[in-house]
């Protein structure tokens, strides 16, 4: 059995990598993947605490998050595809029309 602090450290590392990816990468696909990392960091946390408290609800929650994340990334990729078709780029710094 893995001890909880290790799990939390792993999760925090994973989350931090995800945050870095979201904030620093320009490629929209990479940003989506970084978001996946952040979500999975949450999943690791959920599973870790589920194991600590002997409660399966946390693992069920993690399964739900995985399913919703799959849906989310599907829609996200579709949006990226459409942006590419319209603008011939998926560089997020150039997709900045939503301003005054």
């Amino acid at each position: 059995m893995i001890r909880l602090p290790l799990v939390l450290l792993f999760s925090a590392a994973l989350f931090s990598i995800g945050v870095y990816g979201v904030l620093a990468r320009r490629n929209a696909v990479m940003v989506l993947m970084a978001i996946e990392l952040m979500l999975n960091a949450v999943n690791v946390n959920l599973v870790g605490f589920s194991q600590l408290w002997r409660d399966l609800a946390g693992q069920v929650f993690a399964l739900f998050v995985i399913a919703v994340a799959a849906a989310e990334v599907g829609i996200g990729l579709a949006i990226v595809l459409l942006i590419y078709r319209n603008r011939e780029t998926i560089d997020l710094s150039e997709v900045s029309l939503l301003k005054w």
Partner: protein
Amino acid sequence: MTAVITPAIVRAGEEVHLATSAGLTRYAWLVALLPLISAVVILFFGKRTPGGGWIWGVLTVGTGFVLSLGILWHFVTGGGPTGAAVDWFTIGTLRMQLGQYVDGLTAVMLVVVTAVSLCVHVYSIGYMHGDARFTWFYVALSLFTAAMLNVVIADNLFQLLIGWEVMGFCSYILIGHWWEEHVNSSSAIKAFITTRIGDVPFLFGVFVLIAATGFTTSNIQEISHLVAGGEVARGVVALGAILLFGGAVGKSAQFPLHVWLPDAMAGPTPVSALIHAATMVAAGVYMVGRTYEVFLHADPWVLQLVGAIGVVTAFGAGLLGLVQDDIKRVLAYSTISQLGYMITLMAAGPAGRNAAFFHLFTHAFFKALLFLGSGSVIHACHTNNMSEMGGLRRTMPVTFWTFTIGSLALAGVPPLAGFFSKDELLVALEHDHQWLLFWLLLGAAAVTAFYTARMVLQTFFGEYRGHGHPHESPASMTGPLVALAGATVLVGFLGFAGTGAPFFDWVYLEEPEAVTFVPWVALLSTAAALLGLAGGYAVYREWREPDPITRLGALHRLLANKYYLDDIYWRGIVRPVRDGLSAAVNWSNQVVLDGIVNGAAKVARWLSEGVRALDEEVVDGAVNGVGRTAGYAGAVLRYVQSGNVQRYAAFLFAGVVILAVIFTRI
């Protein structure tokens, strides 16, 4: 409305008449209201009515005439006076009402006014045919009729005053009907202002009498009752009477305010017949007779003054009729003279008053006939001057015969209406032993006969001296002439002692007076009439140039210049007022009033300048400041919204970190 005015009660009289016994007198107000409705209808729909709207006037006045006959029937069958009123307004203790008081005199006046008005309405269809303001003419004619009827039925002085003033206004617009010619509009203004000089005392007379009742009522019967009961000081009564008489002097064209009536002949002839011969000018006489108790119980000198003014007018105006060439002016002076007769008789007590009303009654018919006849002549000859007429008896037989009947009645030849009424006048004076007035009026009767003969001879006899070919007038004009001629022949017998003199059973002050026939008076008056006619025939048997009357020299000059009264008024009143007073008024207007107005405007400008500054600097400043602040804030904050998703995410995380720090601290 009928529900409100019943039961009808004579407020001053002792008897109380319930509406059930009042017969048609209950509807006297309807007689006055109908022409008013007609005036409004013609005003708004006249031009859209075939014929220009005359039909409304004829229908309503005709209905009023029939109704008036029904009202008179109430008195023919021995009915007593009735009254009814509705409250109008109250000022303190003064209770003003709109009401009607119907006695025999009212009924007779209703018949006279509606009959003459009906004739004039019908006559004007032909006379005014093709006139540019035909419809407007009928509006004024109907409105006038309504006002006159209101004067007749009014049971209080205030209501009477309203009708009185509306009549004055209608007279003004009808005299000036053809205002395109300057002389006509000047005449209208002269008539209006001159009668207004009488109206002001009249207004104050009304005030005095209302004050005499202790400011409780203006009801004529109640005032009469109070005055007759001796509850008002004689001096106050005298003041009220003399002020009221001022109104009569103006309206009934008595000396010295008679000068407007001859000039009023500038109006269309039907107007002269209705307003300036038969009805409006008789309103002054009617008013004096209606408020007669006030005159009777005033100091004796009041009635003496009334008699003096009447006789001066009767004689003086009669003489002026001798020198006129304008046929309408002859009739105008004759009207003034006959009105003078009526006013004179007011000085001879209740019997004189009744005789005056009988003369008013007959005079209305034959003078309307004469005016309409002269209108027919003028219509044919296109001139008013008798020197351009002559010989018309062959070309205009109907006009000639009716006009002659009217003239003989005016001259006082038996058995026509004028003879009987003049006879009654003289009998009343004889009974009252007013010998000076008696002989002067007898002399005036001879003068009347003389100028009447002159008028008829110059117009209808000899050779035609004008241009063109005169022809008889259309049926709408000759019809009323024939009707009025018939009335002229018949109405005199109503006051003849031999037929029981029913007129004097209808018109009386307190109780019917016995009418006597005095043969020597009748003989004398007939002699005077025949003498005048014979004299006129002798002088004017054939056309002579110049008029033989000019041989009178200085007297002729005096008469031709109308006793220089117009000149005196012009030099003594009009010019000083116009040049002096109007200059002063102009100065005060320009300097004082304009100064005040301009000063006020300047102050207002300063104030508004201050308000403007306040508005622009403070109020606008605050509003603009708010807007500008929002603008600056937006200009700064807009840099945050870059559109870059990752920057938003960075803020998001920063926020989360901050929140996390805050919450974990706690």
